[in-house]
């Protein structure tokens, strides 16, 4: 995004630009989702400024405006498939922010980028997959204590058949031992990977499955070999 244009977000929102600049900037907005997201936030901010100077208008105005509505034809809605629809960065609802925080996932609301609060970097595809789960409209959260201390939090989207599993406060293990996550169904347990101190994505999760965590030898095993420290129904 060209810096010159991006710094115009504030002036644009305050209507402090010329008509020519406004047009140019609005063309730019069509192709710049981050600018568009910033504009939306700053526009809400400007609205708060406006509200501080609210004044009761003259009483006659109400009757005049209401009367005028009866002789003013309304605009039709725009067609749903607007040709120049701005690519949308979805607003992250507060509920999701709570889910994400609980799952130990930091959602950068303004940018729609999700990162794990992890020591190690995850590849973008996995981060995106995790973001998809915690921002899913049907995301639900389950938390359970573990017998190794701390707790495990599971955010599940039934529609996506995926869960984000994160544990915090569990006892650190001696070298040679790891925490392994399982998707447990009536037909058996399937490994979802090892916990490296951050969140983990379990896929192909079905209703009725449970998420389990066991202590296993380094590198993990094909099947659980110890009693789970936690089991969370999803």
């Amino acid at each position, binding site marked *: 995004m060209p810096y010159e244009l991006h*710094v*115009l*977000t*504030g*002036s644009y*929102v*305050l*209507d*402090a*630009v*010329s008509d020519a600049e406004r047009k140019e900037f609005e063309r730019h907005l069509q192709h710049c989702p981050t600018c568009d997201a*910033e504009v*939306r*936030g*700053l*526009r*809400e*901010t*400007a*609205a*708060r*400024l*406006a*509200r*501080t*100077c*609210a*004044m*009761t*208008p*003259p009483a006659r*105005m*109400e009757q*005049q*405006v*209401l009367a*005028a*509505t*009866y002789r*003013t*034809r*309304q*605009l*039709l*809605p*725009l067609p749903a498939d607007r040709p120049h629809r701005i690519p*949308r960065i*979805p*607003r992250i609802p*507060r509920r999701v922010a709570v889910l994400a925080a609980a799952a130990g996932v930091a959602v950068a*609301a303004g940018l729609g980028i999700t990162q794990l609060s992890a020591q190690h970097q995850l590849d973008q595809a996995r981060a995106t997959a995790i973001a998809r789960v915690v921002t899913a409209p049907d995301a639900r959260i389950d938390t359970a204590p573990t017998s190794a201390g701390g707790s495990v939090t599971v955010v599940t989207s039934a529609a996506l058949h995926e869960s984000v599993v994160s544990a915090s406060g569990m006892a650190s293990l001696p070298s040679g031992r790891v925490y392994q996550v399982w998707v447990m169904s009536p037909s058996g347990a399937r490994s979802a990977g090892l916990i490296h101190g951050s969140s983990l994505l379990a896929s192909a999760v079905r209703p009725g499955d449970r998420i389990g965590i066991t202590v296993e030898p380094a590198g993990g095993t094909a099947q659980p070999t110890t009693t789970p420290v936690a089991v969370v129904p999803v």
Partner: protein
Amino acid sequence: MSRPEIRQWQPEPAPPPDLAALLGRVARGDHRAFELVYAELSGPVYGVVRQVLRDPAQSEEVAQEVLLEIWRSASRYDPDRGSPAAWALTIAHRRAVDRVRAENACMRREQKAAEPDPAQGDVAETVAATLEHQRVRRCMDGLTGLQRESIKLAYYSGYSYPEVAQLLGVALGTVKTRIRDGLIRMRDCMGVTW
């Protein structure tokens, strides 16, 4: 540049009606819903227009246009893109600024500035301060002087950023940057979540 002083405290108001839902009804021609929208938005709309234009008669005229525009284009309000108040106040501020510029208002405004502001001291006309106003003021106080002055001149007085640069005697790029930085700081200070 002056704003109405905060004169009295009021208890927290009742929860505001769901404006987005009301606008949906307005879009289908519901006059009763529009009355409720009017009750909620006419004060902020008139206030911001008056803040920019100063002249009461002209402000009333523009505010009427804006409120009728809300009726006319309610179907274009897109809840994904912002709150109803931001949508309405964007229309209001834009109209007010357009009016100022269309009338070569530079001279007119300077003349007005020399006159006493009729809004000052008019307690009855001033909508009483709320907690939110206090918060805006506190966040405003957290800005640098240049950020604050740039935002006030641009938003409350309707100056373009080149005019603001001239008034404050700073470079164009500086004003653009200060307006943006200042607004971002206000946004974060007020916890705006859009």
